[in-house]
């Protein structure tokens, strides 16, 4: 490929060209208001073939799971089953209006009710709300519930949320957004939360702790029972970041580990496509004591003399709505289909193979790259991408991987490992793919020593080369005609 020379839709635009025809009005016309109208809405003018070729050309510059191996840590880039796309487009689902009377949408409500039940069963929770639109949205929701729980008990002094230093960056952001102070806890030498720090931190100002388990190093927290006990003993709640649930589904239930509230990322564990950055779906599960605080409405099932029916209802002490309607239903349909296709056995098999693949990559890569926590990991692991003395850094290794046809791992995260490369292969990748990736990584490590400039200048084979991010931030061209300076 020779570069991104694709014109923008405005550059393609030709006055008076059009892409679609609409019927003439079949009703008597009403005079338009005399003021408040615009002359022109300033959209581009293209033929339909222009549109199709434009977006097809753009798609060809893009890399998805369908294009190749995508070991982006903590993002669970697994196969998105095609049947789910077909199902979500069934008119009964796609054309349903969210404000229809419930008797006309019993199929949708039944689907949502069962998905609530299944997620509660998989996570070990008493109730689930499907409303949050993404993982971070679920975190915010869970923290508002935590706040509401303490306030409902008249306990207003709990202002701190404990967060391990390996946590996802959205955790502290969600914490501040929910009006708490984030208190970061150090990790111990084995990559666990420092238990002693938890002990010191726990007092009657702690509202709760946010735990990602397995953590972002891909390690199962070895002191999870003790941490949960300490936090609960001081009156705090335990929030689970479900981003890494792809290692746990069918293996252990966070509710059984003592978690009070957790979000699921349907776009990770349950295979709904990431869509280039959404839409996602972040349902929240809650223990018995937190269930009534869930955002709503949720779906309830009643059976009486008139028969059985599903309805939308607001939990008693609900924190309210966090989005319009009932969440990203189209994503719920796909997750439902995924769970239905797998069952208990399939979910466990997925987690097992996700863990198998990640451990296999760790042992295959540990000679070429430093693995700071070299023990049995779960669905992902972290190695250092820096090659000593060559100036080659994690980012360079990642860019060079693009030349080998692989999507890079997550870079520079978690922050506690300098030059981190976080690798999550997922269960849907076969051994030959993993072996090819290992070969590429080993080749890059060799190149870094023999010809570091080659690696530092990578990528060489992509539609564009390294982009000037400093220029982008300094000059801020955010629309096709804004060449304005940053304010």
């Amino acid at each position, binding site marked *: 490929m020779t570069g991104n020379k694709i014109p923008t839709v405005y550059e393609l635009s030709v006055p008076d060209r059009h892409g679609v025809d609409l019927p003439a009005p079949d009703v008597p016309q009403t005079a338009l208001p005399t003021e408040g109208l615009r002359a022109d809405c300033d959209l581009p003018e293209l033929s339909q073939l222009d549109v199709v070729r434009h977006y097809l050309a753009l798609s060809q510059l893009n890399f998805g799971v369908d294009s190749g191996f995508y070991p982006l840590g*903590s993002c669970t880039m697994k196969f998105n089953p095609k049947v789910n796309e077909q199902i979500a487009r069934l008119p009964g689902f796609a054309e349903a209006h969210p404000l229809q009377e419930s008797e006309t949408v019993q199929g949708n409500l039944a689907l949502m009710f069962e998905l609530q039940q299944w997620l509660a069963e998989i996570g070990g929770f008493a109730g689930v709300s499907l409303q949050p639109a993404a993982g971070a949205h679920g975190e915010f929701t869970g923290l508002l519930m935590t706040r509401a729980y303490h306030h409902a008990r008249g306990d207003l002094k709990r202002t701190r949320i404990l967060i391990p*230093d390996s946590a996802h960056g959205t955790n502290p*952001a969600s914490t*501040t957004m929910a009006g708490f102070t984030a*208190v970061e806890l*150090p990790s111990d030498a084995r990559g666990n939360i420092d238990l002693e720090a938890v002990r010191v931190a726990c007092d009657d100002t702690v509202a709760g702790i946010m735990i990602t388990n397995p953590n972002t190093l891909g390690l199962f927290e070895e002191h999870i029972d003790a941490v949960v006990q300490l936090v609960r003993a001081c009156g705090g709640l335990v929030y689970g970041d479900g981003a890494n649930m792809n290692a746990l589904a069918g293996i252990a239930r966070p509710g059984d580990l003592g978690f009070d509230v957790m979000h699921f990322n349907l776009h990770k564990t349950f295979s709904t496509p990431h869509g280039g950055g959404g839409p996602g779906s972040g349902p929240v599960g809650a223990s018995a004591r937190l269930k009534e605080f869930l955002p709503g409405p949720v779906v309830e099932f009643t059976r009486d003399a008139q028969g059985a029916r599903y309805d939308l209802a607001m939990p008693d002490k609900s924190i309210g709505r966090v989005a319009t309607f009932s969440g990203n239903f189209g994503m719920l349909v796909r997750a439902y289909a995924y769970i239905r296709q797998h069952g208990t056995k399939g979910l466990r098999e997925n987690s097992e193979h996700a863990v198998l693949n990640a451990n296999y990559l760790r042992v295959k890569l540990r000679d070429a790259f430093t693995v700071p926590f070299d023990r049995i990991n779960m669905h992902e692991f972290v190695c250092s991408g820096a090659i000593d003395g060559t*100036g080659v850094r994690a980012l360079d290794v990642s860019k060079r991987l693009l030349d080998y046809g692989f999507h890079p791992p997550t*870079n520079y*995260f978690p922050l506690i490992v300098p030059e981190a490369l976080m690798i999550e292969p997922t269960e849907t990748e076969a051994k030959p793919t993993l072996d090819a990736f290992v070969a590429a990584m080993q080749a890059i490590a060799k190149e870094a020593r023999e010809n570091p400039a080659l690696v530092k200048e990578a990528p060489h084979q992509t539609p564009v080369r390294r982009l000037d991010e400093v220029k982008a931030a300094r000059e801020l061209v955010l629309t096709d005609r804004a060449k304005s300076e940053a304010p």
Partner: protein
Amino acid sequence: MPRIGFFINPIAGMGGRVGLKGTDGVAAEAVRRGAEPMANARALEALRGFKRLLDNSPNPPAIEWLTASGTMGRKALQAAGFALVETVHTAPAESTAQDTKAAVEKFLTAGVDLILFCGGDGTARDICAIAGEAMPVLGIPAGVKMYSGVFGVTPAHTADILMRYLAGEIGLARVEIVDLDEDKYRGDEWAVRLYMSALTPFEPTYLQSAKALISSADEEAIKDDIAEQLREDIAAEPGTLFLLGPGSTVQAVGRALAIDKTLLGIDAVADSKVIGKDLAEQQILELLDRYPERKLVLSPIGAQGFLLGRGNQPLSPAVIRCIGADNIIVLSTPAKLARTPLLRFDTGDAALDADMISRKFLPVIVGYHRARLVKVAA
């Protein structure tokens, strides 16, 4: 074309090898005890590493070096393979602190973008005293004491920092120049003293704003965040005395609070108003008499995590005891903490130090509504 002033204190580090705890003023004694100069070897290690990084870089900057003669710089630069080297100061074989000053003055007259030096805290002090607080300074560690914030962790790390700074990947941050009082140190007394602040290339605070998206934040912006938190805390506690301690972080936070805070002094704030500046021990004790509610705001000084050392006379053990260990508020940017995994206390009062150590962890304010638990060194 970047111009770098390069200077080696050839006798740095000699005292340590022969049990002298520093070389300031005792170089002759060190030589008598058989110390070998080591600074040139350290400097060469850093320069060779830097040269390798330049050679590996797709677009290496051409660097113009200004230096002093012989073992004070020129030899090492040539040994590392640098060509564009101009000697601006010629020193005698037995160089002194006067030569350091003369070389730095010539760097300034000729105009350099950064001073790279090899030495310890004493060298850093001598250089910064002339170079001032606005000239970027970076140290290759070769001394006995390296408590100042301008040093890389190792010679290789220093090379890496320099390379990334020249490539525009990292910026500058304000850090402290500190030194132990060597006379007292030799008498086993630990008197860390803060002298001034300096600008140095610094790994910034990395923020993970979303998964897989790390950005680095300007240290001054982070200090503004911390100031916002402190402003809120001060406003939330009317009638409480806030004593602002020494150091560049507290100074920056003071500036964000519109308090003209000095680097070294202790200022007092109550009800969001300044009620005392550059206070002496006695003045602080008098204020403590008047304010039953009091807090002491500190930040780690230099690169080793010292919160309280014996070098600070106004914050005497009597003052600290009176304030109470529970009332100490610690501030730091995450980047500074990244270099200081531990917090240290050496107040000169064993009971007080033991009390701090027994806490195991202290909360440190690292941003607006963000804190971090940091280990206290035993």
